[in-house]
């Protein structure tokens, strides 16, 4: 590897890029706007004083800026992205094309319903697919992301408990210790007390401990299935039955629905509410952290409380019910302005129609097959905390690293130098130094084989004392390890001009 220093700091195609505030100017503009007609201002006393202190860039400069930035990102389109629980699968471009049809992209949420019947039809079709795939009678489409869907499901549960007059009594929500952080955060947001349930030696909910915690003060359980260790909860039906008998509700975190779609219907497991991350199971793009979409399916018991708005069949076509009072049932309220993530609905439906019932079943099977192939191919050199087959993701711990002088983080950073995005690390919390690998169904066998070979070589290196390969990593990425302590101790959250900085000091 060449250590050559360059004048620009660039390294061939790897280009450094300054902030827009450092390259743009106030005089520049990349949009040609019409001349402003002369009118008398009606801004009252609210007109701005002074200019907006933001630079502009011409179109070519702006294009270059953002393209250069893009080249500093890892992406599914460029390589394997095995983030466990995040489901980084291929994002079909047909979905993008469909979402951009003017009939979906260029319609206003509040134009007369008679002028958007096709949009309502799309929402109704998506709802039908989601209800059929999950075996549930109702779905709330509007939640904006997974955590928002969790909130929706738990709100429906809270409303049902309130309707029974049990709100004061049912204050506790059971959450396994392996749960994603959004679960306890959601329960706490609704005023519930979070009570942890331990895992058993097989990585699943400890059934005895769970039953012991049941009581008439339990509102719900929030259980992820397949769980965050990548395992199917074998006792799930027994858990649901016991919970229902005790008067509680079953919230299932559907983050990992992609492992079972087309093969198992949550409705058959006794689930009362489950959100579905359209950006995981149904391939809408993650976009660097959103937008997501978290439609939430509801059981018969919770269906009457589904939030506004929802689509129903009316006399002259489809109707969007947007307000209380004109609803036949008893919505718990509204979670969001307008109707949710239409752009994501189109993408997800486009994906479902492409795969069909047969293809979706194959999706789950290939996702599980790929994960098990990785598990089987690495467990002789890395330590797997649990026995038996996994579902869509393979979990390892750091037991095998003992005495190598490196830790999970070092291992992950060395993967970056090999051209891979690291797996999910240190999650779930119930496993020490966790490494959670989710290949998804859209990786070929050849891609998996190269990944496995790379991982085995890294393990060999770690065990043979190649400490620098790990401790110094990454060395070949656009940046070396970043100082997160500095960032957090003295937060710099926006750009400031050198003059403003100086003035502040």
């Amino acid at each position: 590897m060449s250590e050559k220093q360059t004048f620009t700091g660039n390294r061939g195609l790897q280009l450094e890029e300054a902030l827009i505030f450092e390259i743009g100017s106030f005089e520049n503009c990349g949009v040609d706007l019409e001349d402003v007609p002369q009118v008398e201002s009606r801004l009252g006393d609210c007109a701005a004083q002074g200019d907006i202190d933001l630079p502009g860039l011409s179109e070519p400069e702006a294009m270059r800026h953002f393209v250069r930035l893009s080249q500093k990102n890892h992406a599914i389109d460029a390589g394997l992205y095995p983030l466990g629980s995040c489901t980084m699968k291929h994002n079909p471009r047909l979905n993008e094309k469909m979402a951009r049809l003017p009939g979906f992209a260029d319609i206003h949420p509040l134009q007369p319903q008679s002028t958007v019947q096709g949009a309502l039809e799309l929402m109704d079709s998506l709802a039908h697919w989601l209800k059929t795939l999950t075996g549930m009678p109702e779905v709330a489409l509007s939640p904006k992301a997974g955590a928002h869907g969790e909130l929706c499901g738990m709100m429906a549960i809270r409303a049902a408990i309130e309707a029974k007059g049990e709100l004061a009594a049912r204050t506790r929500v059971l959450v396994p210790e392996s749960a994603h952080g959004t679960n306890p955060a959601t329960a706490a947001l609704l005023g519930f007390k979070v009570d942890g349930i331990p895992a058993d030696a097989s990585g699943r909910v400890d059934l005895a401990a769970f039953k012991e915690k049941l009581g008439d003060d339990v509102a719900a359980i929030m259980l992820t299935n397949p769980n965050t260790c990548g395992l199917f909860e074998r006792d799930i039906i027994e858990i649901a039955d016991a919970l229902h008998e005790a008067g509680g509700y079953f919230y299932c975190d559907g983050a990992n629905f992609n492992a079972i779609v087309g093969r198992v219907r949550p409705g058959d497991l006794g689930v009362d509410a489950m959100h579905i991350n359209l950006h995981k199971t149904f391939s809408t793009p993650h976009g660097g952290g959103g937008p997501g979409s978290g439609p939430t399916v509801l059981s018969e018991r919770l269906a009457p409380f589904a939030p506004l708005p929802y689509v129903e069949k009316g006399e002259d076509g489809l109707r969007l019910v947007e307000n209380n009072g004109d609803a036949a049932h008893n919505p718990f309220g509204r979670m969001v302005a307008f109707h949710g993530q239409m752009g994501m609905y189109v993408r997800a439906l486009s994906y479902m129609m492409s795969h069909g019932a047969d293809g979706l079943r194959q999706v789950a099977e290939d996702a599980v097959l790929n994960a098990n192939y990785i598990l089987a191919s690495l467990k002789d050199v890395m330590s797997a905390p649990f026995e038996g087959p996994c579902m869509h993701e393979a979990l390892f711990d750091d037991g095998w690293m003992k005495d190598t002088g490196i830790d999970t983080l070092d291992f992950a950073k060395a993967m970056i130098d090999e051209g891979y995005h690291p797996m999910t690390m240190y999650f779930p919390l119930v496993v020490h130094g966790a490494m959670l690998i989710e290949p998804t169904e859209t990786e070929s066998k050849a891609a998996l084989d190269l990944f496995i070979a790379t991982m085995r070589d890294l393990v060999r290196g770690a065990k043979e004392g190649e400490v620098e390969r790990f401790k110094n990593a990454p060395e070949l990425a656009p940046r070396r390890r970043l100082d997160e302590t500095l960032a957090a101790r003295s937060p710099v959250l926006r750009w400031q001009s050198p003059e403003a900085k100086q003035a502040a000091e």
Partner: protein
Amino acid sequence: MSKKFTKDHEWISLEGDVATVGITDYAQAQLGDVVFVEVPEAGRQVAKGDDAAVVESVKAASEVYAPVSGEVVEGNDALEGNPALVNEDADDSGWFFKMKLADQGELDGLMDEAAYTAYVKELD
């Protein structure tokens, strides 16, 4: 007097009727680089086991519980501008708050240095 310790890795040291509370060197090492500390204001009443302060590293946030009951008389303002003090000197200048004890008898339930050392050894 000599220091007493809690299972939550706080130390408490009594001088006269005012006790100083901090987190142990073991705790700071577990947390990693401390980036933020929130200490209680003077005058706040805390019961044994209450959340009294917050300590955050890059990857973890942890409550600091009152090891005994009493009234806070001073928070360590130096930590606001320099949270690194907790890493550099947890046992002394990186203290969190001082409190007036409601019942000195509560100290008897805490570990002495030898017991705490043994406790930590067991954790590793």
